[in-house]
């Protein structure tokens, strides 16, 4: 998808959103939802690198998210450092875990990788949940009040919004750059037909590993950003399966394997989730996941390419209809 008017409009809208709603009475709420949209988009874009582009379906990506979150708050909890100092640590740990999972499974058929991601996610969640160093079941808290500018504690959601937006821009730029070059071509070839890719000299295992490591790194950053904003993490909120589900459905709904699909998915899902939480209260989240399950199934069955693919197929069809039903050549 070449950068065009739509992309520019999207970024413009994202840039001015918090300022545009600042005058409204519900501004703090809207800005908070906005920052959640951007944060969710980051982790969904990160998942997209391995799940969408490379076609290796991780169903336990919470591993990397939780690692980032925990490491950030742990450096505060243990050594009283500002949480942001934990980001490199979180990234390093995530990349190591990516190697641990990917190295053995990427030489096997795809299911092993997927199964391994769930198993390791649970393994880590249970381990952390029983480890006092990381707060066991209770979790870790961040700084209650800012001790310096580096703690990045703000009362308003707006600074978080812009920090997250900056990181989102970085993730998208990296993904775009990667997708246009040899690495991106190799990823798509692997997703399409691994055996054929191999026969053309594509170093399949190495490419998959690199993609997973990159994805893990970005997901860890997202986890750290989450910990920064919320100020707290526990085994459920950092490493639970619902964290993985959120990434998957956000990317898949918008369009896995496309550049902006995850962003679109986030813009649609996060406000809806927020609305359902306010209207239905606690019970709402149970229904949300029933709905998510249904949506994921429908996507898999009818349109694995997500909304962007649906749009791309729909537009020529619509154009043909508008032209009076003349049969057009296949693309």
């Amino acid at each position, binding site marked *: 998808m070449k950068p065009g008017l739509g992309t520019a409009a999207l970024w413009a809208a994202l840039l001015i959103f918090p300022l545009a709603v600042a005058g409204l009475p519900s501004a703090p709420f809207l800005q908070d939802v906005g920052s959640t949209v951007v944060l969710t988009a980051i982790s969904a874009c990160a998942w997209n690198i391995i*799940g*969408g582009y490379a*076609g*290796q*379906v991780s*169903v336990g990506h919470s591993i990397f998210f939780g690692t980032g979150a925990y490491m950030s708050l742990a450096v505060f909890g243990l050594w009283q450092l500002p949480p942001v100092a934990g980001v490199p640590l979180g990234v390093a740990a995530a990349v190591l875990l990516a190697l*641990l*999972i990917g*190295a*053995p*499974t990427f*030489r*096997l*058929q*795809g*299911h*092993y990788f*997927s*199964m*391994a991601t*769930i*198993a*390791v996610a*649970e*393994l880590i969640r*249970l*381990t952390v949940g*029983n480890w006092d160093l990381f707060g066991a079941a209770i979790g870790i808290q961040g700084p209650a009040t800012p001790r310096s500018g580096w703690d990045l504690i703000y009362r308003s959601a707006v600074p978080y919004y812009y920090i997250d937006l900056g990181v989102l821009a970085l993730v998208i730029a990296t993904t775009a750059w990667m997708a246009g070059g040899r690495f991106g071509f190799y990823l798509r070839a692997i*997703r399409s037909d691994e055996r054929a890719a191999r026969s053309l000299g594509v170093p399949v295992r190495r490419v998959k590993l690199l993609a997973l490591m990159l994805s893990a790194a970005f997901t860890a950053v997202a986890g750290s950003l989450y910990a920064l904003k919320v100020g707290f993490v526990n085994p459920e909120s950092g490493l639970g*399966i619902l964290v993985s*589900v959120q990434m*998957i459905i956000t990317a*898949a709904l918008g369009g*896995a394997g496309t550049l902006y699909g995850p962003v679109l998915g986030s813009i649609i899902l996060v406000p809806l989730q927020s609305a359902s939480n306010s209207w239905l209260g606690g019970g709402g989240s*149970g*229904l949300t*996941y*029933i709905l*998510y*399950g*249904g*949506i*994921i*199934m*429908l*996507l*898999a*069955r009818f349109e*694995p390419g997500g909304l962007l693919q649906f749009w791309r197929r729909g537009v020529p069809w619509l154009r043909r209809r508008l032209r009076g039903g003349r049969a057009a050549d296949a693309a």
Partner: protein
Amino acid sequence: MILLQAAVSGLLLGAVYALFSTGLTLIWGMMNFINFAHGEFVMLGMYAALLATWAGLGPAAFAPAAAAALFLLGAVVYFALIKHVMRGPMLAQILSTFGLALLLRYSSLFIFKSDFRTLPDSALSGTIHVLGLYVARAQLLAGAAAAVVALGMHVLLTRTGLGSRMLAVAEDRSAAMLMGIRPDRMQALAWGLSAASAGLAGALMAVAYPFSPVVGETFALTAFVVVTLGGFGSVPGAMIAGFLIGLVEALAAYLIGPVYKDIVVYALFVAVLWVRPQGLLGARAR
């Protein structure tokens, strides 16, 4: 002595693991498809048994009833969903049953809430004193029944005409079609059997252990570990591995602590992937 007790307990539960894992590996070997909702099928078997007892069915009837109900569900899932995503991209295949798992799990949570339940007391309660060990009657029954059925599945696949037709489809779909076998039917049958094995296992477990809608996730992971350890598509492998994992779990719980039993099993899974991914009896992992 208590160690032996734990081991026996573990083997009995392991028999149930073996049962539902043979269902998972059957599909895997036959259609190169991993059902991420398999754990939920086990969970639904437990609730099917619960509903059956509410409906007044006795212990002898609710297990087969649960198996039958899940058989139907498996076939329906095949025709409505699996058949269509099977030949598509990996993402669609994995998401299809992953989404189903979420749907089943959260619907069950919505309907039944998250409290743990047990089946109402029946003739199956109490313990038996055998060879100096105390074994819960219900656990013994569950284990024994599971072992028999798992063995039966193996016999079905390897020694009956139906079984060889199913294996023919797994081997070479087009060739099987030329021989007059209907791949669709065989695959739907496989799904039904797979789900039924899960449902039956669930019903048997419900007799002896408390359950809740959230247990599906743990059973799914157990099944993944068992089928990987057993080897791609190997029913005998899954059977042996099932017993092994049950044993390992029980010993880990006894020696290290109940909290760590799952951690040990999942760590074992990672070790198997690193050291011997083809498992015990698997031919290939690529």
